[in-house]
């Protein structure tokens, strides 16, 4: 019954290394390019793929991801196309876990039940919905778990020991530790502090803990991979993609390569980490 996410973390644990989790926006800058990027990510070194579901009002995201969402919407991305993209991806890759990440409204409007069954059928493995805290678990989290999807929750520096159990109760797949109080793409935090926080979360759960927000370089990815089970990189990939676009926001021939090149560098960082004995 285990999902691709659970299987992937089990394999990596045996290999003794952390996962590189990449975040890219579905439909950025257009459907074809974002699909080509997604297909190229695993061989470049991504272990888990997070695909953003674009939304007009991403209240926890910084300028890079906001702009990526708007580029995607402008090029005609919609929920149906994001799910189609996952189906396409699955035609050639049945192993790399795919997590859809975004905000609740587009799902709610698509219809929760319809979304869960279509997502499952498309080959989605987990969901991260930024504006659904545990207080709203009945909305989508519990039905998602029932549908066989992982519901991955964010834990943040404001999630103290008292609150952690609430956050972890219905979390599955992995825990996503947001390393800063702030929006995506903001300055990276002090690695020491992150390690302390990861250790704190691990005292409460056996689930893998991935760390994200602010990771940009191979060096930084390596440092985090020494203590965490996964390193999430998003804004850095999106920035790289944006820089490869021409004046009109159209992708040139180098768009996919620009992203995969950075992913391989980050993957080397993650793979060169000397893991502290993970218990």
């Amino acid at each position: 019954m285990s999902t691709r996410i659970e299987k992937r973390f089990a394999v990596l644990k045996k290999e003794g290394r952390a996962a590189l989790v990449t975040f890219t926006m579905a439909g950025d800058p257009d459907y074809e390019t974002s699909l080509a990027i997604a297909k190229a990510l695993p061989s470049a070194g991504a272990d888990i793929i997070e695909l953003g579901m674009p939304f007009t009002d991403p209240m926890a995201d910084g300028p890079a991801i906001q702009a990526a969402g708007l580029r995607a919407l402008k090029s005609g991305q919609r929920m149906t196309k994001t799910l189609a993209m996952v189906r396409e991806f699955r035609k050639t890759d049945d192993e790399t876990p795919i997590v859809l990440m975004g905000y609740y409204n587009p799902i709610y409007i698509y219809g929760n039940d319809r979304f869960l069954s279509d997502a499952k059928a498309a080959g989605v493995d987990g969901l991260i919905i930024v504006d659904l805290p545990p207080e709203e678990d009945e909305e989508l989290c519990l039905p998602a778990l029932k549908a066989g999807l992982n519901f991955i929750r964010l834990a943040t520096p404001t999630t103290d020991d008292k609150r952690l159990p609430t956050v972890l109760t219905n979390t599955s797949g992995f825990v996503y530790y947001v390393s800063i109080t702030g929006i995506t793409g903001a300055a990276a935090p002090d690695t020491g502090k992150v390690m302390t926080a990861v250790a704190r979360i691990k005292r409460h759960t056996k689930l893998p803990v991935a760390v994200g927000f602010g990771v940009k370089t191979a060096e930084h990815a390596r440092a985090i991979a020494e203590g965490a089970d996964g390193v999430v990189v998003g804004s850095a990939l999106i920035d790289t993609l944006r820089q490869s676009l021409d004046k009109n926001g159209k992708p040139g021939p180098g768009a996919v390569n620009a992203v995969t090149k950075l992913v391989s560098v980050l993957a080397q960082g993650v793979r060169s980490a000397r893991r502290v004995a993970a218990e």
Partner: protein
Amino acid sequence: MTVQQPNSFRTGPDERGHFGIYGGRFVAETLMPLILDLEKAYLQAKTDPKFQKEMDGHLATYVGRPSPLYFADRLTQHCGGAKIYFKREELNHTGAHKVNNVLGQIMLALRMGKTRIIAETGAGMHGVATATLCAKFGLPCIVYMGAVDVERQKPNVLRMKILGAEVRPVESGARTLKDAMNEALRDWVTNVSDTFYCIGTVAGPHPYPAMVRDFQSIIGRETREQMQVAEGRLPDSLIACIGGGSNAMGLFHPFLDERAIEIYGVEAAGHGLKSGKHAASIAGGKPGVLHGNRTYLLMDDDGQIEEAHSISAGLDYPGIGPEHAWLKDMGRVKFLSATDDEAVAAFQLCSKLEGIIPALEAAHALARVPEIAARKPKDHLMVVNLSGRGDKDLASVEAFVGSKGR
């Protein structure tokens, strides 16, 4: 279409912040502990007689409450029906109802030991009220305002700056109120430990819709007493404009359980409901989730939020407070709308007939008054919430009238 009506319309929200299916707490985890803290602090303050007494003192000597209930004689004659009263919220310090809520929230912020205040603003009235009370209580104040609104509400931008606030123009999205709120939420996520987010309307995650309503309910409570004094009984109908819905909720809430009283909320119809360029989320939207709550929202069929359009910056928001959404479904409040043209005409009519220049927001409520009043008998008592004064809108109205060649 009969709905089962509750025994009371005044008991909501439930402990999780729901008004029926509306409301809730749809926020990022980073904010959740803060919102829980805020809820606790608010519940304590609400039942603390000292807090209440201090607030009453400031309301009397600083805000200038009670605001008068004024019989609008010439407008009444003009309409030829109901007796029309104005609740004069435009006479409050800072020129709108917004200050009632801001006073409560800033006092709460101080009580919680917060040292930095952020706010979003559309027309700038909430921003001005927040800047004002931050000056009074010696707190740093940052106001997020859509770049478009910074342009069309210049006098208020200047006022905020003079009051010592920092106005940050927001360049993302449609660059109006919705985007200002996104940016304020992003600031809050980033500065959780010292910052208090002072929301300007009955929207956002629980407990904001209930808390802002409670602070604004002084409008309705005073109206009850004042109408008793003036006419020896309660009014027969109430009408207010709706942006997020705080001036309306403040007037309506104390009357919700007197079911014979007709209650009207007026949304902004911009260029007309059929034009697609409007801000009427009840008339043209459907339930969805944005800015921490479920409510009626303007959006496309993919769940992407659409931009609102109104000549009135204070109504230019694609949502509405969740309690209004519930009252709409329950059939307790009737929602109407007024176009830019109608609001400007009402703005002019009120100025000339009563010597009161209303805010363009309030002019939307005034726009629907003549036709309702005309249908009523002469002893029908109608209260219009005059939520703010129109000084800030003179340039917009002049430009609008000029462009129409009138």
